[in-house]
C-alpha cells in the first residue's frame, strides 16, 4: 500500500466573494520531499498554502495535512509548523519571549522550551537577538526569527510561504541554506515565485496559474531535464555540414536522439532523447563530441529547459510578477 501523503488537496476551491482564488485543485505532497508551489502573483499559491495551514477554510473540497483536517490543531500541534508570509512578529515581545511562548504552546515542557528556543535561534544565526524586541528587528532578522519559530521542535511538515521575499541576496541565500539543511528531516512545502530558489531547493513542485494546477511532478519532470538537453552555440553559427556549422541531421542520427533542432535566432540546439535509453549526461557527451568534431563553438550546455522557461511556457508568458 502506498504511503499516506504528507498533505493532500482534493478538488479544493476557495472563493472570496465573486473572485475564485483557487479553482478545483487536486494535489498530493509525498512525505519527506521538499515541494514547491510555483506561480505568478495572484496564481493562488498563498491561498492554497493558507488552506494547508488552516488559516482559510476551503469553499469546496477537502484539505488534509498529515492525514488530518488542518483545523485539528490539537492533534497537529508540533507536527505542523508554518512560516506565514507577511505576518508581523509581536512588536512588544523580545525574540526570546516570543520563541519561548511558541515553544510552550507546542507543549514543549517549560524546562526544555528554553533550550529548544535557543537552539532554533542559534540555527538561524540569531543568538545575539534573544533580548531584542521583535519590533526593533530588521526585515531580514525578523524573517529569520519567523523561520526559527517554524523550526521549533521537530515538525513533520513545514510550510514556508515566500521565505526569501524582500530579503537581500546574501540573506536570501542564507535562508535557502537554512531550509536546505532541514531537507530530509521533514516534508517541506515552499511557496515562492523565485524559480531559481525552488529549482535549487525542491524535489517536486506544482505550477499554479489563475487558481488552477497547470503542471505538477518532480523538478526533473517539470524541466524535462531527463529528456532534453540544450546547447548554446557561438554567434554567427548556422546550420550546415561545413566546419563551424551545426550538423543537425547528423545529430538526429545519433542512436539515443529522438529529435534535434537549431533555433538560429536564439542560437540554441535542442536535443530530445529517450530517457529509458540514456541519461542526460551520456547524451551530452555524445552530442558535444559530434559538435566538437565539426568545430562548432559552444557557449553553454543545460539539461532541460530550466524551471523558469517551463513556467513561463505554462503560464503563457504572464510573467511572475504581474
Amino acid at each position: 500500500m502506498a504511503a499516506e501523503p504528507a498533505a493532500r488537496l482534493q478538488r479544493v476551491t476557495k472563493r472570496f466573494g465573486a473572485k475564485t482564488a483557487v479553482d478545483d485543485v487536486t494535489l498530493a505532497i509525498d512525505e519527506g520531499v521538499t515541494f514547491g508551489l510555483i506561480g505568478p502573483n495572484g496564481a493562488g499559491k498563498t491561498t492554497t498554502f493558507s488552506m494547508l495551514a488552516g488559516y482559510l477554510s476551503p469553499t469546496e473540497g477537502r484539505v488534509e495535512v498529515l492525514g488530518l483536517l488542518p483545523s485539528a490543531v490539537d492533534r497537529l500541534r508540533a507536527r505542523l509548523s508554518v512560516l506565514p508570509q507577511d505576518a508581523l512578529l509581536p512588536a512588544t515581545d523580545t525574540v526570546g519571549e516570543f520563541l519561548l511562548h511558541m515553544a510552550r504552546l507546542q507543549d514543549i515542557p517549560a524546562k526544555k522550551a528554553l533550550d529548544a528556543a535557543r537552539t532554533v535561534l542559534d540555527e538561524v544565526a540569531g543568538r545575539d537577538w534573544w533580548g531584542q524586541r521583535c519590533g526593533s528587528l530588521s526585515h531580514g532578522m525578523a524573517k529569520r526569527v519567523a523561520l526559527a519559530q517554524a523550526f521549533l521542535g521537530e515538525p513533520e511538515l513545514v510550510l514556508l510561504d515566500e521565505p526569501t521575499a524582500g530579503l537581500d541576496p546574501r540573506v536570501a541565500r542564507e535562508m535557502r541554506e537554512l531550509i536546505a539543511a532541514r531537507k530530509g528531516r521533514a516534508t517541506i512545502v515552499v511557496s515562492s515565485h523565485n524559480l531559481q530558489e525552488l529549482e535549487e531547493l525542491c524535489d517536486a513542485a506544482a505550477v499554479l496559474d489563475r487558481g488552477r494546477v497547470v503542471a505538477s511532478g518532480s523538478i526533473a519532470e517539470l524541466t524535462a531535464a531527463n529528456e532534453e538537453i540544450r546547447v548554446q552555440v557561438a554567434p554567427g553559427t548556422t546550420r550546415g555540414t561545413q566546419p563551424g556549422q551545426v550538423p543537425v541531421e547528423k545529430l538526429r542520427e545519433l542512436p539515443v536522439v529522438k529529435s534535434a533542432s537549431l533555433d538560429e535566432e536564439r542560437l540554441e540546439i535542442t536535443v530530445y532523447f529517450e530517457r529509458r535509453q540514456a541519461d542526460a549526461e551520456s547524451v551530452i557527451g555524445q552530442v558535444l563530441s559530434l559538435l566538437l568534431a565539426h568545430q562548432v563553438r559552444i557557449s553553454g550546455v543545460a539539461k532541460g529547459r530550466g524551471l523558469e522557461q517551463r513556467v513561463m511556457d505554462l503560464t503563457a508568458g504572464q510573467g511572475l510578477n504581474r
Partner: protein
Amino acid sequence: MSPLAEIQLVAGRELRRSVRSAKGIVLGVLTLLGATVSALVCVRIEASERAAAKALSNEGFVEAKRQLFERVTGDDALAAYMARVPTSLIVFLKITVWFLPLLVALLGFDTVSADLQHRSVRFWAVRVRRGSYFTGKLLGLWATVALIALALNVLADAVAVARGYVTIGQAAGWGLKFWLVAVVIAGAWAGVATLISSCFRAPILALLTTFAAFFVLWLFGIGGFFARVGESVDHGMAAAAKEMSWYEYLYPNAYDTMLVGPDPARVLTAVAILAGFTVAVGALGSLLFARRDV
C-alpha cells in the same frame, strides 16, 4: 495540551503585553491621574458632607446617611448597610464603574483585531485552538482591567485612610469588595470588546464598533433608569425599588447596586447574571472566531 493550559498561556502573555505596550502604559498612567483627581473630588464631597453634619454625633451622621440612602434606594437593608461606608469610597466606585467601559474599549479594541491586521495571529493559529486563543485574549484583557481597577481602589482607599475616614482594616474590606464589584462588571464589558475586536481586521473599525455597541448598552441602562425615576416621581416611590426593565439588565453597570448590597442572594444573582453574560459572549466569540478565516 488541554484547552485550559492553552488559555492560561495566551492570557498570561496578553496580560504581559498589555502592561508593557505603549498604549497600556499611557492608559494606565492617564487612568491613575484621573483616579487621583477623582479621589480628591470624592474626599472633598465627603469633607463637605461631614462639615454639614458637624453638629451630629457619629451615630447621628450615619443615621442621616441611612435616611438619605433609603430615600434614594427605597431599600432599608441596603441603606443601613451603605450608610457605614465612607461616601468617598461609594462615589469613587460609581466613577470607576462609570469609566470601566471606556477603559475596556480603549484597552481591548485591538486585542484580536491588531493580530488579524498584522497576521500575527497566524503564529498562534497552528498551535492553539481558536477558542482557546479567543478566551485567552478575553481573560488577558479582563485581567489587565482588573489590575488597573485594583490600583485605582488602592489609591482611593489610601486617600480615605489618610483623611481618617476609615481604618486600614475597613479600607481593605470595602476596597476588596468594591474592587470585586468592578472586576465582575468589567468581565462583561471585556467579553463584548473582545468579541467585536475579533470581527474586524482594522482596529479602528473595531474601536468605533465597540464604542457604538457600548453606547447602545448604555442607552439601555440609562433609558431604564430614567423610566424608573419618572415612575417614582409619579408614584412617590424610590427609583431603585422599582423593578428594572428587561433591557436595563443588558447594561452591565446596572448590577452595581445589587453587587454592593448586603443580601447574599442578590449579590449571587448579579454575579451569576454577569458571569453568564460574559460566558455567553465569550462562547459566541469563540465560535465565530473558530469559523472565520485568519
